[in-house]
């Protein structure tokens, strides 16, 4: 089984070794620009370059982020060295020996990424070992990691002077090739003449990560890195099954982190290989599909793909990529998509605690990952309330259609849609889509002169049982 390793990174040799040791064939695509096309799903991805098409069962992205070298303006005669750059070179003679101290600065103009602290400490120690006088200026010392406190103490013992400066006090000028750095800590103004100013870099995704993310339709967080903003895909997964990211956050991995991420990812791949096929699957009715690309756009897992091989082009579901969240079913304008064993069936399952014969006041549609768990926690304490309601779990709030809510309102006085908190949805924006459906129903109710409060919506996590209890009490 091929595993494609994509991107340029210092961990590639180690990763490919580990993959081989675990019985995989590692295929390396170091230059992302060489990848011209991409399609397929877990177990069978197809990666196209100018020369060839390579099949891979799984993909691991290792492309290093870019670092943006520090710049000070106006341009100094002794412009600052980039910390990341310097850390990859031998300490030796890049700093001319003129007797002036080396100044390492972090957190200017903005907070540096935490990883910079360990890099700076190591470099500072290396310089101190060469008998250089080192000043370490930072607003924070980020030592929340194993061995980092020890490293910090070593650095202090080696004679490095640490100064915690106040944010807006950093100032500099240069004069005759000497750079003077000025900062204010809480006790006074400190002025240091240096010939070697090293500053922390900022880390950005960069164009390669941009490119591959777009090509593979990978979801990115606010800062542009792949994955990361959703707990469910921690530590190395992405929104697409079978595609993993290692080491995307920083150009230089904290050694321990990279190793454990690699071990974890390879074991996750093995586990994914073992995953049995689901009994439920998504079907697109070709006679209804309008080929509008809506499902393709909204699928959080990039599991819909156009099928041009049929008589008329139609959308089809990549069943190995599909998470069965039901969002496409809910949002297809032509109603062409169904999941066999879909929401309707689930609605027929009634919570065993409630009595089935009498008509109930309240119907709760709750996400199985959050609200359902919270409800289960309060079942015993609020059993009387539970007698007045029917509960149905859905795999994602996004599965809930306006039409379904309306039909439920014929049987129940009230409907509560209880989904995950923003950014905690396993399918990323399923909870928000549920909200839109609820809003639509409320508008229709209002237009029909009915009480729009008959439909309620709430976002909870599994650890908010009392919020569920309060909400139910309010409704009933």
């Amino acid at each position, binding site marked *: 089984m091929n595993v494609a390793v994509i991107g340029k990174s210092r961990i590639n040799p180690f990763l490919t070794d580990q993959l081989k040791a675990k019985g995989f064939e590692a295929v390396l695509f170091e230059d992302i620009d060489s990848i011209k096309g991409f399609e397929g799903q877990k177990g069978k991805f197809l990666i196209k370059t100018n020369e060839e098409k390579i099949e891979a069962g799984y993909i691991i992205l290792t492309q290093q982020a870019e670092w943006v070298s520090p710049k000070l303006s106006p341009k100094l005669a002794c412009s600052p060295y980039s910390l990341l750059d310097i850390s990859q070179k031998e300490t030796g003679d890049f700093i001319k020996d003129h007797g002036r101290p080396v100044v390492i600065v972090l957190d200017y103009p903005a907070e*540096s*990424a935490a990883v910079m602290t360990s890099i700076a400490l190591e470099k500072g120690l290396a310089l101190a070992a060469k008998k250089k006088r080192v000043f370490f200026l930072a607003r*924070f010392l980020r030592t929340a990691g194993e061995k980092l*406190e020890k490293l910090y103490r070593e650095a202090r013992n080696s004679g490095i002077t640490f100064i915690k400066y106040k944010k807006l006090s950093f100032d500099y000028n240069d004069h005759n090739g000497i750079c003077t750095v000025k900062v204010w800590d809480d006790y006074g103004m400190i002025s240091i003449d240096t010939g070697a100013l090293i500053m922390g870099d900022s880390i950005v995704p960069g164009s390669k990560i941009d490119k591959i993310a777009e090509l593979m339709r990978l979801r990115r967080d606010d800062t542009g890195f792949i994955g990361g903003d*959703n707990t469910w895909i921690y530590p190395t997964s992405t929104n697409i099954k079978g595609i993993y990211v290692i080491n995307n956050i920083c150009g230089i991995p904290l050694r321990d982190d990279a190793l454990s991420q690699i071990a974890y990812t390879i074991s996750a791949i093995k586990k994914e290989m*073992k995953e049995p096929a689901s009994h439920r699957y998504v079907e697109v009715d070709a006679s209804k599909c309008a080929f509008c690309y809506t499902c393709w756009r909204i699928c959080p897992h990039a599991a819909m793909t156009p099928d041009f091989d049929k008589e008329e082009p139609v959308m089809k579901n990549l069943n190995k990529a599909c998470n069965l969240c039901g969002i496409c079913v809910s949002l297809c304008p032509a109603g062409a998509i169904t999941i066999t064993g879909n929401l309707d069936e689930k609605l027929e399952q009634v919570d065993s605690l409630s009595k089935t014969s009498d008509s109930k006041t309240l119907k709760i549609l709750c996400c199985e990952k959050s609200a359902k768990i919270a409800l289960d926690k309060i079942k015993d304490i609020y059993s009387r309330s539970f007698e007045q309601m029917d509960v149905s779990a859905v795999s994602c709030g996004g599965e809930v259609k306006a039409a379904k809510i309306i039909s439920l309102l014929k049987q129940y006085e009230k409907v509560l849609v209880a989904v*995950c908190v*923003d950014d905690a949805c396993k399918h990323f924006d399923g909870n928000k889509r549920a909200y839109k459906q609820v809003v639509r129903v409320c508008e229709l109710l209002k237009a029909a002169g009915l009480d729009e409060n008959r439909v309620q919506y709430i976002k909870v996590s599994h650890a908010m049982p009392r*919020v569920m209890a309060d909400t139910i009490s309010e409704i009933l």
Partner: protein
Amino acid sequence: MASVLVIGGGLAGCTAALELAQNDRNVIIVEKSVTIGGKVRSYGCKATDRCNRCGLCLVGDLWDQVERHENIEILTGAQVVDIMGTKGRFTVIVKTHGYVDTISNLDHIVVSTGFDEFATLSSGSLEFEESKYIITGSELERLLSNRGKYHLFPNPPASVGFIQCFGSRDIQEKAAYCSRICCGYSIRAAKVFREYYPDIKITFFYMDFQEVEGQDCFDDLIRDNFEFIRCRPVSIKAGRPNLILYEDPEDHSLVEESMDLLVLSEGIYPSRDFENLAEVCRLGLNENGFLKYIENPRQSGIYLAGCVAGPRRIEEVYAQSLQVAREICGGIL
């Protein structure tokens, strides 16, 4: 078929146990308290208008799944007294409710006994008395786990002070390391306070601030009206309100400020009997009292999972415990 023994039924132990069980291994969890769940079971959600990524969602209904799984046997009120044998053939002596029991036919052992909270130990450097207006990190979590739709406190405080690094990064207290999790949970908790009570005054007393979310989180927090004072308070007079005495970093004057509620952001401390644990489990100790490997676990058959090996965040424990379980499953995963 041999079973795997999991010592400690907290987040790490249960995550590993469930992963093992789902891969057709038989698991026995030995838990010293009356129920599984450890510390995390009493933790609360820290979402505001959006998830703040505390990692708790990964836990979900873990405890239920573990309790229901047919491959997992749970012994509560039980403690491991000794481990005999070698990988593939361990025999363990367990003490429960006064009896002593022997469990044999174990091929692997996972040590996941977790950590102790610093506040349970006496503090030398910061003077204060116990008070219900001074709460620790774990009491904070219990508060959050009980959060209602509109209220967090029966009587909401107008001002909250967070004392960071309580017990951590303090050589004299012998917890010289950073506990890694306190900046995270206290910031998230503070955001929750703000969400419920927009006018609440929030002050952090800190030395350094670890990266909680992204590169500019500290500056973002300042923009959101969180006050940060870089100093360690000298003393606290418990009461209603509490009085905090500290040196103002700006002008070096001594300031006494009143705060309705104080939160001691305590860190992660090794469990009290770490020496005994290390000896019984054939593991070493690092300089901070956390357990570490002295033999490759693939040879010894004894694995570490979770905070027993050092401060770790929830999602890190989750990933690591899964990984340990998968390694034990060996050829399969």
